[in-house]
């Protein structure tokens, strides 16, 4: 094909073409800057987990793998991590069970005080953590319970429940009630309907809520600081060591947690693609 410039075909001015290109790619440019902003801190944390830092991890001193080979190298760090994981798991289990039951009650049944309960559930989310933490501490002290492991777990359940309720309730709301009617129509009694239809369809919401609860519990500092007494959690460890210089092992654990969460989210996406709920 020969390209002969045909004077009769009007050409589009350069300026118009540029602005068109800009219009078409605006969302990409915006996304590029948005993600850069979000991920620079993560990238920084990851990069400095390889820093041959010594005591303080502020200046790049050279690449090493020894932090990753020995993540428990910094004193106390793995005890703190263990505590955080233990508190996180227990708080997640309790808040997920409790929150799921509340979500079903509010999402499915008309009872007196339903809208009030719906509102009250939001309160722990809206209350400043510093207030919640301090009030819980004074409450524990009134009942002569010393701060420590279990008070921290109870405190975490308090604020995680709200998030679980909101997440699970959204899933229940998107569930077509006709599916349960169809199950009952097909000889499933109330329990079988719940077990075979309702629960499997709400499960992704419950799983998402549990993950959310765990991550909220894991990185909570303010409420934990009030209620944990001498117990060290991972956020507390990082906060305290910040004064003397955070060890590179903290970056290792932080990065590892990030990649673990990422893997779980990707796995969740893949699974939910298979069990999509239709409207």
């Amino acid at each position: 094909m020969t390209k002969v410039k045909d004077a009769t075909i009007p050409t589009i001015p350069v300026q118009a073409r540029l602005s068109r290109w800009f219009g078409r790619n605006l969302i990409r440019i915006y996304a590029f800057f948005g993600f850069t902003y979000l991920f620079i801190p993560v990238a920084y944390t990851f990069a400095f987990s390889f820093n041959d830092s010594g005591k303080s991890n502020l200046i790049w001193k050279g690449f090493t793998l020894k932090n990753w080979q020995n993540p428990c190298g910094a004193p106390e760090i793995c005890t703190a991590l263990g505590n955080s994981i233990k508190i996180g798991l227990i708080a997640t289990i309790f808040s997920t069970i409790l929150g799921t039951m509340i979500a079903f009650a509010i999402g499915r049944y008309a009872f007196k005080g339903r809208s009030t309960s719906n509102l009250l559930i939001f309160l722990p989310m809206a209350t400043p953590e510093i207030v919640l933490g301090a009030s819980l501490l004074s409450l524990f002290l009134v009942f002569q319970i010393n701060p420590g492991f279990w008070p921290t777990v109870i405190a975490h359940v308090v604020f995680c429940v709200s998030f679980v309720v909101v997440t699970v309730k959204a899933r229940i709301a998107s569930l077509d009630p006709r599916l349960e009617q169809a199950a009952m129509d097909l000889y499933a009694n109330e329990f079988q309907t719940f077990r075979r239809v309702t629960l499997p369809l709400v499960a992704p919401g419950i799983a998402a809520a549990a993950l959310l609860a765990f991550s909220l519990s894991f990185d909570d500092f303010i409420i934990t600081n009030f209620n944990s007494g001498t117990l060290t959690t991972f956020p507390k460890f990082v906060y305290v060591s910040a004064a003397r210089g955070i060890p590179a092992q903290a970056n290792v654990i932080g990065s590892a947690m990030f990649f673990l969460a990422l893997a779980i989210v990707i796995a969740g996406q893949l699974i939910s693609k298979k069990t999509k709920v239709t409207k």
Partner: protein
Amino acid sequence: MVDVSSATRGDLRLTRITKSYGDFTAVDDLSLTIPEGSFFALLGPSGCGKTTTLRMIAGLEEPTVGSIHLGTTDITTKRPYQRPINTVFQNYALFPHLTIFENIAFGLRRRGIKSVDADVNKVLDLVELPHLAQRKPTQLSGGQQQRIALARAIVNRPALLLLDEPLGALDLKLRRQMQIELKWIQREVGLTFVHVTHDQEEAMTMADTIAVMNEGGIEQMGSPADLYDNPKTAFVANFLGQSNLIKGRIEGTAGDNLVVDLYGQKISMPKSRSHAVDSSIYAGIRPEKFRISLVGTPTRGNVLSGGHIEEVSYIGVSTQYQVAMPWGQELMVFEQNDDGVPPFDKGDQVVISWEPNFTFALRGDEDVEAGTEVAPDDLDEDE
């Protein structure tokens, strides 16, 4: 657990059923018998109570007053899973987390049947989709989902199969095809089908018996031909097709016929086709029963003269005329296009005639607009 095979079968009887939601009465003192083995349609506009009636039969709603019997068993307060009745839901309601096979096997498994393969495969063959057994519902087209929903219900061989606007979500061509297919499947499996629809054409195509519902009650029940040719009320006359309703007065009788005066012109009609209570009536004639002839040409049967052609619409299979009558009414006439070109032009002076036997008479105090203000096609049933 319901053992469907030996469960009570027989006619379904609704006795004086009323269902109210607060001040609103959805179904009002309805009595109805659906014979075993029939293809029965509940036809009516949105909000007439047909879906509520269906849900009460399924057990998804409880009647406020009244009773429901299947054969001799009272099932009024039985839970949905205790009734040998299955439903094809409006939007199919297939379980999205289960495969097509497991969807169909769901009812069998809940009834404690261990080996389900043969039954499931048999209905998959019946709906001609055996190759989709391992798919998930979202991977199927609307028409395929519709058939699976049907298969999931009939695999249980219920005493009664309820279809709630089953074809509403399909396009016209597929709907036509499924109408014929459903009818065929009903004959094949020999179950009682109760079909809820707002589409009069769908009801007439498929059902042996149609109950036309309006405002929570039954207007008229009968075969499609009965309802169409001899409607008892203006609502039925207008909801099933179109009708010309002409105000008139019964003047006397002549043998088995009534002599009726329509704006000064005398016609006759069979006594048996009058549903009037006194001499004031509306005479009803379907548009395709009319014949048009030019003034001066021979006619037979009933004759109304003095009209002229007001409007001509050629629509292929027929030509539709609006004929203006001396008393100010426009009558609708459908003529077959047997001989090609429309033979009448706008403004032609014409005479309308028809066979007396095609006339029906409604009460003179009827609302002639009843059933016309609802355009059945753009209704979305969500009562």
